[in-house]
């Protein structure tokens, strides 16, 4: 069985879903005697952000599971260890992946009550996916609120990498319809879906309780918090200036301890 159990760390690693659509998952089993009534699904960001944020996600999962939460991490189709070598045809493919992962987590944890957490695009996808299914709480870590800005950030990041490494750099003319984003092959419809992400447009509460953690105060986040409150959601909001691990060199091995602690504290106090 693909399971190991070390002090404070008990995991199962597996693929779930149908063959060519199967997704990679890791389930963190809480120690006996500290069980909670909610499980937590960690929704990753994508590609560079997911790779660089991997260490922090693992730490977050371990810390939550030690407190009794069954926790699952997974990779979207076309990312990480999951099947697929490109983005899905539509962004909704990744929202469907979140729903599949939620079912997998419910099945493994035997708990119906589920919470989501997501960094950057993972936060946006969690919020959008939660609109169509019952979710108790969502924690957003520096969430992407507007997709057009986010795509610009990724493209500038790609240009920055090339500037840094290439002496014979090709022309950096800005491509309005890029076919790739930081190593991820995308098509036009997917790109449009990414650009059209707008969390300010959601009209139904995605969860009863939400937590937003950002690194520096941003007007966009403040407006989003107000929007969520107008939808009747209990929203907590913290600013914690920790390393932005999703952009940092992974070899620095930074763990944003204060951010993780903020998230863990919120989950453990909200879902006793």
């Amino acid at each position, binding site marked *: 069985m693909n399971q190991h159990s070390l002090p404070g760390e008990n995991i199962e*690693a597996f693929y779930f879903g149908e063959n060519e659509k199967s997704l990679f998952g890791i389930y963190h089993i809480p120690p006996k005697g500290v069980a909670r009534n909610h499980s937590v699904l960690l929704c990753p960001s994508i590609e560079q952000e997911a790779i660089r944020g991997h260490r922090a996600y693992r730490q977050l999962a371990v810390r939550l599971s030690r407190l009794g939460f069954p926790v699952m991490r997974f990779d979207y189709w076309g990312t990480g260890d999951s099947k697929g070598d490109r983005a899905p045809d539509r962004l909704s493919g990744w929202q469907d992946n979140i729903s599949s992962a939620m079912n997998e987590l419910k099945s493994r944890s035997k708990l119906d009550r589920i919470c989501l957490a997501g960094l950057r695009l993972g936060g946006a996808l969690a919020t959008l996916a939660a609109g169509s299914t019952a979710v108790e709480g969502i924690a957003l870590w520096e969430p992407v609120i507007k997709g057009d800005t986010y795509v610009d950030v990724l493209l500038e990041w790609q240009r920055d990498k090339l500037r840094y490494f290439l002496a014979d750099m090709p022309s950096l003319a800005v491509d309005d319809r890029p076919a790739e984003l930081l190593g991820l092959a995308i098509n036009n419809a997917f790109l449009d879906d990414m650009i059209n992400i707008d969390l300010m447009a959601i009209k139904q509460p995605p969860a009863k309780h939400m937590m937003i953690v950002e690194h520096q105060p941003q007007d966009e986040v403040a407006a989003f918090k107000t929007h969520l409150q107008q939808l009747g959601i209990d929203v907590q909001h913290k600013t914690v200036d920790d390393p932005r691990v999703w952009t940092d060199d*992974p070899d620095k091995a930074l763990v944003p301890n204060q951010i993780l602690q903020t998230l863990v504290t919120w989950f453990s106090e909200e879902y006793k």
Partner: protein
Amino acid sequence: MKEEVLLLGTNKTLVAVVTEPEQKPNSDLPAVILFNAGLTHRVGPNRIYVKLARQLTEMGMIVVRFDLSGVGDSTVRLDGVSFEAGVADDARQVMDYVSQTRGSKHFFLMGHCGGALISLGIASVDPRAIGIVMINAEGGDTQWSEYDRKRKTSQYYENYYSRDAITSSEKWKKLLTGKAAYGSILRNIFVNILWHRVSTAAFKLKKRLSPDQEAGTSPEIAALYSTIPALVERKVPIFIIYSQGSSGLERTQFLLRDAKKKIGSSTKLKIEIMPRCDHTFTLLESQQRLYNTIADWCTANMPTPSRVTAP
């Protein structure tokens, strides 16, 4: 092609993904082991390990991507062994598993950046390794890392000003209307471009004039490269791949000065420089060229019964 996730090692703490053909693979073919690129988990930078594994599996090979202890999803070792001994033991356990369950007798060891150096180190002590692919081997060396940082910073600002800013009407407008950050621009031009260029040129000159091959290189890195002649004598083909302009290539060429005298013109050691590729092969076109290059090398270096001796 099928993929399976496994927990390997004595305590099942090493998280590994095995990619293999649907049909029972030919156990005469070497299996491929991919070692972590620094602290990046087993998918590799820009996910190149996943895609490389899938392409090599199409050639009939088994490929294992795994996290060394303390990296990615594998937990840290609790037995107090040194980093080097731990890495060697992790690698041995993974190769043992593949041998026992898939019948593979030989291995091609591959890695990017720090993983390239690990591949070399493991191959030098494990006779089951019959080929090594080192992709952009860098790091582990303070002086060279600092040289690398200065060279790339200089390159970054040169690219930025000479290709981007110069064609941006918005930036020209700021410059001409007193709204630009002039101090920052001057610092970038005089320190980050010009001074770093002078500094890196001086470093290269010092290295070239140094009679001592290992001067300024960490003893661990120098010791690793010193194993290459023995590997070539063992008839282990070594494929060293570098993105064009990589300072890792400069270090490797520097460290191979003496080794090349011993090796002579052996075809076992091949160095390939790939143009228009960044360190982590960000652009998809550069990734595909990398996979094809490695696949071609694998084809050319597949063992024949007469060439391989039992370990």
